[in-house]
């Protein structure tokens, strides 16, 4: 048979490749389901991670179908058969420089796109006017903390331990001892930027509620900052998550949830908790007085 040039053969392969690429684009359109893309919908950073992922997924699928298509075509076309001799080619500098350059361009484009998206994922926005009234969060130099433009947010200190999560709601008075504390279920207001500073008191854990954004390790001696902001329509939703870093035998059951409340409901919840806390403190102080006076407690 007449021998075609390498280039003509590549051109011939182009049509099925283009078809595969458009099929993958279509597939990516349906990528909202979380079997093919990460969970999102609870916070803008999770949404931004999702859309960045979809860009990479579509690019990846195009590359996959193109390369896999080329491979299958070559395998089928050049299988051993009578009358066909293997051509003794040692290489082709132009082609090789071509795909080195092609790979480099692709990688640079993906890096630029990622940087373009980074701000949206990394930097918390201000709370909405309808959100819970927040206070200025103290700067935490030397960490990866990022503050909203106006510096205000609801700051929750997340503490991981074997095997659970403790949440301390920073009331902004500089005294952590009188903050409201909750375990496992984190009640949070919608429309409000919530800043989390995450640490651990024993082994390493990892905070992860997929719909509210990525995971952040809780490491004893370090503070790891992240944020989320739940939109108003997600009030009364409970977002599930669990520890993502092996932390011992019961790692599988170190779950957590974030329960979204309207700002008003959250205000009530926080106030009730605070009252409970203060009452408990008063009772404890009275008991302490009795003990100090030498009386036995009933």
């Amino acid at each position, binding site marked *: 048979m007449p021998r075609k040039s390498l280039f003509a053969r590549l051109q011939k392969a182009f049509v099925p490749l283009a078809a595969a690429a458009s099929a993958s684009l279509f597939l990516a359109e349906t990528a909202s389901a*979380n*079997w*093919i893309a*990460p*969970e999102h919908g609870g916070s803008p950073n999770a949404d931004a*991670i999702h859309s*960045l*992922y979809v860009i990479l997924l579509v690019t990846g699928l195009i*590359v*996959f179908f193109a*390369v896999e298509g080329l*491979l299958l075509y*070559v*395998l089928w076309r*050049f299988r*051993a*058969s009578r*009358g066909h*001799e*293997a*051509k003794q*080619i*040692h*290489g*082709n500098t132009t*082609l*090789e420089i071509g795909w080195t350059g*092609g*790979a480099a361009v692709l*990688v640079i484009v*993906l*890096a630029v796109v*990622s*940087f373009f998206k*980074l701000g949206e*994922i*990394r930097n918390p926005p201000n709370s909405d006017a309808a959100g819970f009234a927040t206070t200025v969060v103290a700067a935490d130099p030397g*960490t*990866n903390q990022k503050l909203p433009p106006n510096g205000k947010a609801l700051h929750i200190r997340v503490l991981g331990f074997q095997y659970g999560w403790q949440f301390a709601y920073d009331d902004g008075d500089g005294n952590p001892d009188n903050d409201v504390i909750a375990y496992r279920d984190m009640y949070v207001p919608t429309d409000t930027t919530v800043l989390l500073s995450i640490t651990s008191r*024993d082994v*390493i854990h990892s905070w*992860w509620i997929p719909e509210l*954004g*990525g*995971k952040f*390790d809780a*490491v*004893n*001696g*370090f503070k*790891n900052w992240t944020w989320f902001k739940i939109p108003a329509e997600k009030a009364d939703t409970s977002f599930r998550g*669990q*520890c*993502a870093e*092996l932390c*011992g*035998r*019961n*790692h*599988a059951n170190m779950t957590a949830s974030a329960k979204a409340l309207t700002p008003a409901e959250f205000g009530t919840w926080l106030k009730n908790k605070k009252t409970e806390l203060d009452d408990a403190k008063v009772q404890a102080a009275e008991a302490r007085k009795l003990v100090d006076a030498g009386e036995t407690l009933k």
Partner: protein
Amino acid sequence: MAAADVTTKTEEQTLPKVPLLTTHSVEPELTGWRAWVLTTDHKKIGIMYIVTALVFFVLGGVEALLIRLQLGTPDNTLLDPQTYNAMFTMHGTTMVFLFVIPIMAGFGNYFAPLQIGARDMAFPKLNGLSYWFYVAGGVVFYSSLFFGAPEAAWTAYAPLSDDAYTPGFGTDSWIFLVHLTGISSLVGAVNFVVTIANMRAPGMGWGRMPIFVWTILIYSIMLIVALPVIAVAATLLLTDRHFGTHFYDVAGGGDPMLWQHLFWFFGHPEVYIMIIPGFGIISEVLPVFSRKPIFGYKAIAAATASIAFLGTLVWAHHMFTTPSPTAVLIFFMIGSFLIGIPTGVKLFNWIFTLYDGAIEFKTPLLFAVGFLSMFLIGGISGIVLATFPIDWQLHDSYFVVAHFHYVLVGGAMFSITSGLYYWYPKMTGRMMGETMGKWSFWFMFVGFNITFLVQHSLGLDGMPRRIYEYEDIGNWGTWNLISTIGSFILGFGLLLSMINAYRSLKKGAVSGPDPWRGNTLEWFIPSPPPVNNFDIIPTVRSVEPLKDIRQEVAARSQAPGATEAPAPAAH
């Protein structure tokens, strides 16, 4: 040598008047088990490496199937959490330290000296020492089954691996495994470097070395760079556990992040240490079965070296979720992206090695092509994971588990199987069964993809790794069941190849010296090769010395039918 008998008088006069060789005593050749245990022959040591590694592979495989059985249904109670943690710790450690690295050392031991035309490794006794340290590491590690198995995962993150959280023998046995197999690999790596640098056949310059030898050289250099770091890290962990130091303990002024940096400075190069000899095997198999020279020899060798170099600079991409400054994350993301370039170059060069060839679909080629497909998927998901904001979602989820199994099973494991089918006739003198080999390939290929493709979805749907039980959230139950079924199909495929290898020892067709019409020097000598390998070491004039020899023989015998016949050749 025959040449000595026909030495003429004039030559005799020019010889020095001292004996060329002296010996104090001549030992009789060892027979039976002593021939194996006391051997310093690189081929016997190579076979012992391969067989021992396959034994550990079976153990690691059984652990994997137990893990999959436990995860097959939600809220399963087959394994308790302690056993489950022990199983994935031992599975990971076994596959990395006791299977992939040593079996690559086994292939390297057997075939690197043959491919460069050497009669043994540079330091034969050191070579034996290296093997026995490896066995010792495996025995110490597996003895922990009787004393309390390790539970802190193969990454042994401090402080979980500290005595406060995992007391007992388990983590200590892991530390000793790291030390013993570390010495083994380090000694072996030095041996490889010296052998390859000094003992190549006349005419075999660096530019004519087979790609497999290039990859064994790069594998060795990477081991020499990475292993001392993990040895130090593990020693610090040992003193933290037993001698009251606080290197990784915050309460004592230590730093748990130090462990992660030291571990991954070793651990990431380790990934490439596992896959690079696989690249070498693929680069040998593809040209032979497509009857073409490798496409872009220099580009493939250079790409392998640059992957190795970049691979030592990207360790913190395993640490994107730790409390680290964004600038650090960006550096490690860019570095990881860059690895995509030489990897892409290699993939295209491999595909174009097949292009315009006359491809014979023998079992080694099937596994090599399976490697190309699945390594491509692993490479693409690797770029996705290297994008650190995306990694924040996917890190430590089943997506990562899927990714590295595509690289290490689809990549390393398939290249190892390809190499086993390709080199088995050289090692035993017999062919492995083709039909059974092809069945094995299809079971493995389908089973592998069923097992691990759905794990991407599990991770995207929020399932973290290393959990011993789960509630039936979303489709977790269904996907896990599919994955478990797939793992047994994969296991059955592997079993077929193992039975095939065992049966073929006695029943395989006799292969002769060169059953595949290979291009490299191991096919020049009988199968299995004699103890001294080469009676005559040929002079090398290209990357494909055996093809040159075949053509030369054909030209001299003046028989046109004996030249490179068009494929398919009759074997």
